[in-house]
C-alpha cells in the first residue's frame, strides 16, 4: 500500500507544482512598452498602446525593410476595457510588466485623472518605476511621433527623461514619486511635460507629421487634476530651490559688456525655518559650483560670481513671488514645516492659505567658479 501512496502523493504535488494556469510562453507575449491615455469625451478614453517588436532590436538588422506598426489606439469607457480590447487585435497576450512610460493627455489631466491613475495603481504588472509624462496635445500623437536613436518612442522618452535633461527644466517622475506626493495631503504632485516639435528645429508643432518629442518643464497637479504648468524659467528656479539642477546645465546672462555663460558642475540647496513674532520665515541657501564657458573681457572671477548669483537669486525670488500670489505651494513648504517644526505646523496648518502668501522668504545664492575653461588666451582688440 505504501508503494502506491507515495507515488500518488508525488504525482499530485507535481500536477499542482506545474502552475499551468499562469504559464506564459515568451513567444505568446506582447510586451507593452508605453501607454498613452487621452480623454476624448466626458466618459470615453482613447488609449494608445505601444509594444516592442523583437526583430527591430536584432543586432543583425530588422528581418524586413518594411516598418512594423507597433502602435494601436482603442476607444473605451474604462482603461481595463481598453486593455482587454487590445487582445482583439493582438495575437499575443499583452503584458505590462516591462512598460517604461505612461503618457497622460493634457485634456485628461485638466478634467481629472484620478480614475485612470487608480486603475494603473491597482494593476500589479505595472511597476512603480514606470515614468509619467503629461503631453501637450494628445498622448496618442506623442507615441506616434519619433525620437532619435530609439525605435520605440516610449523608450526614447524614458531615456530623454532619465539620461538627458541638461537644460534642467524638469525632473523625472515615476509612479512611486508621483504617489508619494499625491497621497500626501500637504503636497502637490508633479510630472514633466512632453510636447511635439518640428524635426528640424525646436519649434512646437501641432502635427505628428515629421515631428520629434521634446520633454521640457513641469506640470503641477492637485488631487489628480492639472493645477499649473511652470514656464522653463520657473521650472529652473524650482529645481534650484530643490537642489536638483543637473550637472552641465547652462546659465547665460547678457551683462551689457558681452555674454557670461556658465555651466553647472554641482548644485545643492539647504532650507532653514525661523519664527519671529509668530511669523515664520524661510531662508533658502543655494550653492552652485560653476565652470565658465564664455565671459566678457576683463571680468574678474568675483564679479562673475556676483553676476551669476544675482541672476539665480532673481529667478528664484520672481518665481516664489508668483507662487505666493497664486497661493501655490510648489516648493513643498508645507511638508518642510511639518517635518521640521510640528508645533508650528499644527498652529498654522488650518490657516495655510493666509499664511503662505505672507511667508517671508530669504534667498541666498553662493556661486563658486571652479574654473574658466582657459584653453585659449583672450586677446584684447
Amino acid at each position, binding site marked *: 500500500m505504501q508503494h502506491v501512496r507515495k507515488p500518488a*502523493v508525488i504525482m*499530485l*504535488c507535481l500536477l*499542482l*507544482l506545474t*502552475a499551468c*494556469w*499562469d504559464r506564459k510562453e515568451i513567444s505568446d507575449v506582447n510586451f507593452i512598452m508605453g501607454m498613452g491615455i487621452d480623454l476624448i469625451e466626458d466618459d470615453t478614453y482613447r488609449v494608445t498602446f505601444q509594444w516592442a517588436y523583437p526583430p527591430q532590436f536584432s543586432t543583425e538588422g530588422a528581418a524586413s525593410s518594411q516598418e512594423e506598426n507597433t502602435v494601436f489606439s482603442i476607444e473605451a469607457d474604462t482603461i481595463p476595457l481598453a486593455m482587454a480590447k487590445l487582445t482583439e487585435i493582438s495575437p499575443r497576450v499583452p503584458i505590462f*510588466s516591462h512598460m517604461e512610460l505612461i503618457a497622460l493627455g493634457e485634456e485628461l489631466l485638466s478634467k481629472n485623472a484620478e480614475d485612470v491613475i487608480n486603475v494603473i495603481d491597482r494593476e*500589479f504588472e505595472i*511597476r*512603480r*518605476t514606470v515614468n509619467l509624462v503629461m503631453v501637450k496635445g494628445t498622448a496618442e500623437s506623442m507615441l506616434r511621433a519619433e525620437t532619435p536613436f530609439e525605435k520605440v518612442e516610449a523608450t526614447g522618452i524614458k531615456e530623454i527623461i532619465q539620461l538627458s535633461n541638461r537644460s534642467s527644466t524638469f525632473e523625472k517622475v515615476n509612479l*512611486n514619486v508621483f*504617489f*508619494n506626493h499625491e*497621497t*500626501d*495631503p500637504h503636497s502637490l504632485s508633479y510630472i514633466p511635460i512632453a510636447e511635439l516639435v518640428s524635426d528640424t528645429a525646436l519649434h512646437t508643432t501641432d502635427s505628428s507629421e515629421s515631428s520629434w518629442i521634446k520633454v521640457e518643464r513641469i506640470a503641477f497637479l492637485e488631487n489628480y487634476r492639472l493645477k499649473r504648468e511652470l514656464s522653463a524659467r520657473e521650472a529652473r528656479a524650482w529645481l534650484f530651490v530643490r537642489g536638483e539642477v543637473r550637472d552641465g546645465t547652462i546659465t547665460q546672462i547678457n551683462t551689457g559688456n558681452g555674454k557670461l555663460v556658465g555651466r553647472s558642475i554641482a548644485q545643492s540647496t539647504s532650507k532653514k525655518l525661523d519664527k519671529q513674532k509668530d511669523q515664520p520665515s524661510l531662508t533658502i541657501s543655494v550653492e552652485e559650483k560653476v565652470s565658465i564657458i564664455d565671459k566678457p573681457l576683463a571680468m574678474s572671477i568675483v564679479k562673475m560670481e556676483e553676476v551669476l548669483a544675482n541672476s539665480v537669486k532673481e529667478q528664484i525670488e520672481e518665481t516664489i513671488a508668483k507662487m505666493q500670489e497664486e497661493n501655490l505651494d510648489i516648493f513643498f513648504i508645507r*511638508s*518642510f514645516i511639518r*517635518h*521640521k*517644526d*510640528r*508645533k508650528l505646523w499644527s498652529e498654522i496648518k488650518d490657516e495655510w492659505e493666509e499664511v503662505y502668501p505672507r511667508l517671508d522668504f530669504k534667498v541666498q545664492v553662493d556661486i563658486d567658479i571652479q574654473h574658466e575653461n582657459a584653453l585659449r588666451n583672450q586677446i584684447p582688440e
Partner: protein
Amino acid sequence: MKITYGQMTALIMLTLSVQIYVFAPSFMADHMGQHLWISLIISITISMLVGWGMLNLSLQFPDKSFTEVLKKVTGKYPGTLLSFLYSCYYFILFLIHTQIIVTMFRTLFLPRTPSLATLLLVLILALYCSFLGIEVLARASSMLLILLTSILLFLIVAVIPEVNLNHFQPLLPYSMEGFWSGTLIPFAHYGQVVVISSLLPFANKNEITKQPRIMAGIFFSLLITALIVIQNIGVFDPYELRRLRYPTVELNTLIRVGEFLERTEIFLVTLWAGAVMLVVGTFFTISWTLLKNTFHIKKSKRIRVAMMVIACTVILLFIPNSNALVSFIFDQWVYLSLLFHLGIPLTLGLCYTFRRKVRGHAAR
C-alpha cells in the same frame, strides 16, 4: 538524532525572518507614522527578554519536552491546559503563514491559479514536513537562512538610493497617540521567539549551551527585518505606505542595478516562498508534537491528516482571502497573541521563581 544548537538557532531565526515585513509596515505606519522605529525597538527589546527567559527556563529542564516543562512549572492540569493552548497557538501560526503565502501568490503572481491548488500544495508539504520531523527541517533551515538573509540584506542595500530621509522627520513624536497599538503589531510577530522553548528539547544536550550566540542570532534576524520595515517608511512616506497591501514586494520592485539587473523580486519571492513553506512545516510539526505530548497520542498519521483537513476547512471558511486574513491578524491576533508571547511566559517565570523559593525555603 538530535540537532545542534546552531541548527536550532537557524530554525528560530528563519521563523522570525519571514512574516513582519509582509503586511505589518502599512498597519504600523497607520498607527505610528514615521515613528514606527520606536515601536520596533521596544518590541525587539521585550521579545529578546521573553526569548532569554524562555530559553533559560527550558534549560532548567534539559531532558524534558515543552509539555513536561509546563507541567513541572505550573502543575499537572494547568500544564496540560497550557500545552494544549500552545499547540493551538502554533496551529494558528501555521494557518496564518499558510494563508499568507497562498494569498500573496494569488494576488501578485499566479492570479489564474486557483487558491485551492496552492493551498493544497502547502498543506501537503506541511504534512510531509511533520513526517520528516523537526530534525530534518532544522538541518534544511541553515542553508535557507543564509540565502534568505543574503537576499534581505541585498534588498536593504539596493533600495538605499530610493530612501528619502525627510520621510523620517520629525524624528521624535509629539504625542503617544497610536503608540501602544503600533507596538503590539511588531510584538505579535517578534513574540514568536517563544518557539525557542518548543525547539530546545530537540537540541543535543551534550553540546555546551551557547545562550549568547543563540540570542545574538535571534537579535540579528529581528534587526534585519526591522530595518526592512523602517526602509519602507524611507521609500514610501507614511501616507503612501498606509495604502500599500504588500509594501515590501513593491519595495523590491524598485530595485534597479543599472540597465542590466531588473525584476530581482523573483529572487526574494522564490527564497521567501521556500522559507515560508519550511516555517509552515515547522509550526505544524511543533503544533502536532505538543498535541501528541499533551494527550499521549501513539498512532498519529490519521490525526495529522485530520488536522490538515481542519486547517483547510478553517482557512476556506474564516480567512479565505487577503482581506479576511489581514483583518484577523491585525484586529484579533495582535491582541490574542499577547497571551502566548507575554502573558503565559510571565506567568511561567513567576511560577518557576515562586516554586524555587519555596523549595529553597523547605530545604533550609
